[in-house]
């Protein structure tokens, strides 16, 4: 019997995690439509008073699974071993980003849960937690941007007859990085496309992350068997 190396199992955790992410997204009452940075402290406080339970459930789910992408990113890192690189530095960059990026999700979920923990507190304090949560989630893109760029560079430098990932995946990752950039500027605007509830900072950013997960999982699924065969050949 062929030994199980477990990579397929890791890959199949992704749809499960994705379902939970989507569930948390729709369950959280402040995403559809996204809460406005223009709301007054009283409006924010009454939002948490009225939606306490849903904020808690959704953010507990998000807190559980926001780090679930790390094993998937490690699958990407393992595929990078097969690239025609001279050094492991780009893999190290990916590992560094994979460690740092989910902390933004994690911290944001903690602020949301804190906001909902004592909804009867002074409205200004609830607004403060709410601001911190939204800023952390929206602006916390540095490692997502960097991760996409490192992967793009790695694919670009993988010059061999059958590269691990095809060139369009590099271009796709650059596009995702570009789509995430406006969210970093969400602090500058209370209105319009850059605000944290705006078209670029909310819809484009989150769609880009969702699209990245979908595309990369398909691409990874295709890259796995070939490597499994290679591992067998070397065994």
């Amino acid at each position: 019997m062929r030994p199980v190396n477990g990579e397929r199992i890791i890959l199949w955790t992704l749809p499960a995690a994705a379902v939970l992410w989507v569930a948390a997204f729709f369950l959280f009452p402040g995403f559809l439509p996204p809460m406005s940075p223009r709301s007054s402290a009283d409006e924010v406080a009454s939002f948490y008073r009225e939606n306490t339970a849903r904020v808690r459930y959704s953010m507990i789910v998000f807190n559980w699974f926001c780090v679930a992408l790390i094993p998937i990113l490690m699958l990407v890192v393992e595929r990078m071993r097969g690239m025609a690189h001279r050094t492991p530095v780009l893999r190290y960059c990916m590992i560094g980003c994979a460690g740092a990026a989910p902390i933004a999700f994690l911290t944001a979920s903690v602020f949301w849960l804190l906001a909902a923990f004592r909804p009867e507190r002074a409205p200004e304090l609830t607004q403060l937690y709410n601001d911190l949560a939204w800023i952390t989630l929206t602006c916390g893109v540095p490692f997502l941007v960097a991760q996409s760029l490192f992967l793009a560079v790695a694919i670009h430098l993988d010059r061999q007859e059958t590269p691990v990932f095809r060139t369009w995946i590099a271009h796709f990752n650059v596009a995702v990085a570009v789509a995430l950039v406006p969210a970093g500027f969400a602090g500058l605007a209370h209105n319009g496309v850059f605000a944290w509830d705006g078209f670029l900072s909310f819809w484009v950013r989150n769609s880009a992350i969702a699209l990245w997960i979908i595309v990369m999982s398909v691409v990874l699924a295709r890259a796995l068997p070939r490597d499994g065969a290679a591992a067998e050949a070397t065994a």
Partner: protein
Amino acid sequence: MRPFARGENPKRELWLMWFAVLAFYQLYTVVFFVLTRTQPPGSPSYTAAEVPGWFASHHDGLLVGLALIFVLGGLSATSIALITYTIRRMSVSRAFAYSYLILYSVSAVPGFLFICVALTAGAMRPERDPRLQQWLYDLGFLSFSGTMGVFLVGSLVWMAAILLDRNRVFPKWFGYLNLCNAVTEVVVAPAWIFDRGVFAWNGLIAWWINVVVFGIYTGVFINLLRNVIIREDFGTGPLPDLPPRRARRHTAAAEVA
């Protein structure tokens, strides 16, 4: 190692990292010293009534500068990756390299993400209750200056690796410079206690001396990393010496010819 296409510089990945490191530290300096003017930091002795004034006078610079860090801060991974690579090139266990990688990846979050979030939240709502603005102000500066352990242990790990290394990847004196950097993380600890004087987060010891040491340390290691890349022979034994400057120019000229 995989076969390598002819005519391609085998050090291209290392050089790419090195230039990204250079770009990152320049961005970092410009953002924190020029754009946001959070370095030198605001005073920890401001009363709650004074903090909104600080946010008002730094408003635009804070939001623009911190946004740049939100977008480009991930470049910091390049310096971590390159240093991890140099530790792997040493004769010491890979445990040192991986420790460094993880320690500094963790450090990114308290090291710059918290100050960015806290001061953005403060600058976004200048009308917020001054006591809450002060809360954000403290969170920003203390998370930035007071995140000590990762840098302390990280520097010590790098120091130990350098001092034990027989491949001469870094000069031994640089090992001791790591100790100086580690010491800055020790003497900054009283910033958690004092809000004025030499040990406060903007004080002579906790800020001025530390920032000078960190500046020298960073400048030195960026240069040394460059030398390591030049010296790298992709072997496992001692790293060759840096070729003399004249010879380097000579080889370059010969290559061009």
